[in-house]
């Protein structure tokens, strides 16, 4: 295959990555965000693996050592990106593990994993602090909102 369709791996990688990026931005559910992040990173792995391919190439394995027979002299795929991606997979698994650990903690302390609900609870905390006379942060905003409330 030639032309733009001939490099269809790259199209798939871009589509996967964009689905992931969309999920990270648009989904309020934290678990869905973590899944989307995983998808995003997996797209990049596919990109690296596609980069290693050579036309007619085989696995980069030294066949003489395996069977003692005739050595295959043909082209083989570039093993370096494979090795890099092994490392990147480990990294991505660790990122996911840390993200899930955080989400579990969030669920324990907030009782929800919906980002907009968490945001609303944080705002309520701020307002309560303000009324207790403990201005923690963004007091100006709260002050405005409270004043607006009184006028209304």
């Amino acid at each position, binding site marked *: 295959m030639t032309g733009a369709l001939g490099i269809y791996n790259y199209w798939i990688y871009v589509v996967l990555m964009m689905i992931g*990026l969309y999920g*990270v931005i648009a989904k309020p559910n*934290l678990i869905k*965000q973590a899944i989307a*992040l995983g998808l*995003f*990173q997996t797209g*990049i792995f596919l*990109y*690296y693996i596609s*980069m290693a391919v050579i036309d007619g190439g085989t696995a980069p394995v030294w066949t003489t050592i395996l069977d003692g027979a005739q050595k295959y002299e043909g082209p083989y795929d570039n093993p*370096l*990106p494979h090795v*890099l991606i092994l*490392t*990147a997979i480990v*990294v991505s698994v*660790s*990122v996911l593990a*840390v*993200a899930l650990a*955080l*989400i579990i*903690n*969030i669920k324990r*302390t*907030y009782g929800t994993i919906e*980002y907009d609900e*968490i945001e609303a609870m*944080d705002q309520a*905390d701020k307002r309560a602090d303000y009324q207790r*006379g*403990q*201005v*923690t*942060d*963004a*007091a*100006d905003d709260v002050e405005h909102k409270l004043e607006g409330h009184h006028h209304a």
Partner: protein
Amino acid sequence: MLDAFEIVPNLPVLVVTTPLIGGILTIAMGRGKGPWAWATLITGVVFYFTVLLMQQVLAAKTGFISYELGNWPRQWGIEYRVDALNAFILLTVAGVGFVTTLYAQKSVEKEIPQDRHNFFYAVWVLAICGLLGITVTGDAFNVYVLLEISSLTVYALIAMGKDMNRQALTASLRYLILGSVGASFILLGIGYLMMVTGTLNMEDMHDRLAALPDIVHHRTVLVAFAFLLCGLGLKMALFPLHMWLPKAYTYAPSAVSALLSATATKVGIYMAFRFLFTIFGVGFSFVAMPANLVLSVAACAGILVTGVTAVRQTNLKRMLAYSSVGQLGYIVAGFSLANVHGVAGSVVHIFNHAVMKGGMFMAAGAIMYRLGRCDLRSIRGLGKRMPLTMAAFVAGGLGLVGFPLTAGFISKWYLVQGALEAPHMWPVAAVVLVGSLLAVAYTWRVVEAAYFQEPEGESALVTEAPLSMVAPMWILIGASVYFGVSATFTGEISMRAAKSLLGGAP
């Protein structure tokens, strides 16, 4: 004794392996003061190593030290390469890391439950390991791996603030998602560069990119450049990609805020130096591509917007966090000028801002230690109750303003000089000056509350923070004053780093 263990020839790798192994061993140091003492020992040793490394680099005839891991030639293996620029950043990160570890003891005792101290110090040391690793390596993929080591540990460190305020958890997760997207963009950029050049070594990448015909229209190189610029922007919290930073710095444990503000984003900027100057080269990044325009506009907008936001804050830590984004703007604006004084100003400000802002976050942490919060209302009248802490905060604030005889003045002097030398870049100089006025405004709000208002409630009863917090705070603030009065060392090093970055050959 140093020769017997062959420490000096192996310094570049010891800077990373010592905290890597030491950090993991921290977990086994029990529940008492053991983990803290061990972390202090490790960071102290690493700081000593970076001082030795600096001496080696200054003595080296070529101006840099090259270290091949496992003696593999650099085409195949990983090369660690230290020149004036990394030696200086290493010294900054390790030095501030050591001083903040000294400071951390009391603050962590108060803010984090006892049974988690060993884990806390383990990730703490590993975070410093990752930051030093990014700085020392000359291999593009190694940068990504060490970047993720430092990022993952930093996410954990921020989340440890959850016992003070549960928002630390959401702040950490937000940073994790944005940080991972940024790191993935960097990984993609490195992949495209490898596709074109077939190598991961930064020097080789530069040579092979320079040999390409018509690089300006080489689509793969352009894509790599775009991905790297976005990823680096996220990692160094360049406005408007800084959204993760204020919340993370506000809710992290106080010692962590001090460490991060001084080191984490600075190392992001160091990566930008390496990718934009060393790999792509000044000719491509700043002449053929409009990176200088993009970066300086973003940086100037950041200085102004975050300056105004900082003035409106009432929480000291959040105020300092916004101010940090603005100060990073100065650093980015400096190197986007792409002339010697601009780049030198940016390098020297990395160090100067690290000591000033580190010291100020320590002061905010000391107030947290005594009062459990650090907003403008609770610090009323503290100038009399906690004189050393508040004086440190004000001295740091004067540095941010760029008051003469503070380190901030030196940075701004270079930056303004660079902006006036570059053609059509005088608005940068104007923004630097307006930014200083905004720094006056937010520092003044603190001065007014602490020195001109009467204490109320429990603030009237507090005493000065313990010596183990005040002393490290004043080491950093003292350094910012010392290097403001006598800027020979920092000035010479940064001029040397700037010349080698702009000259192409490091």
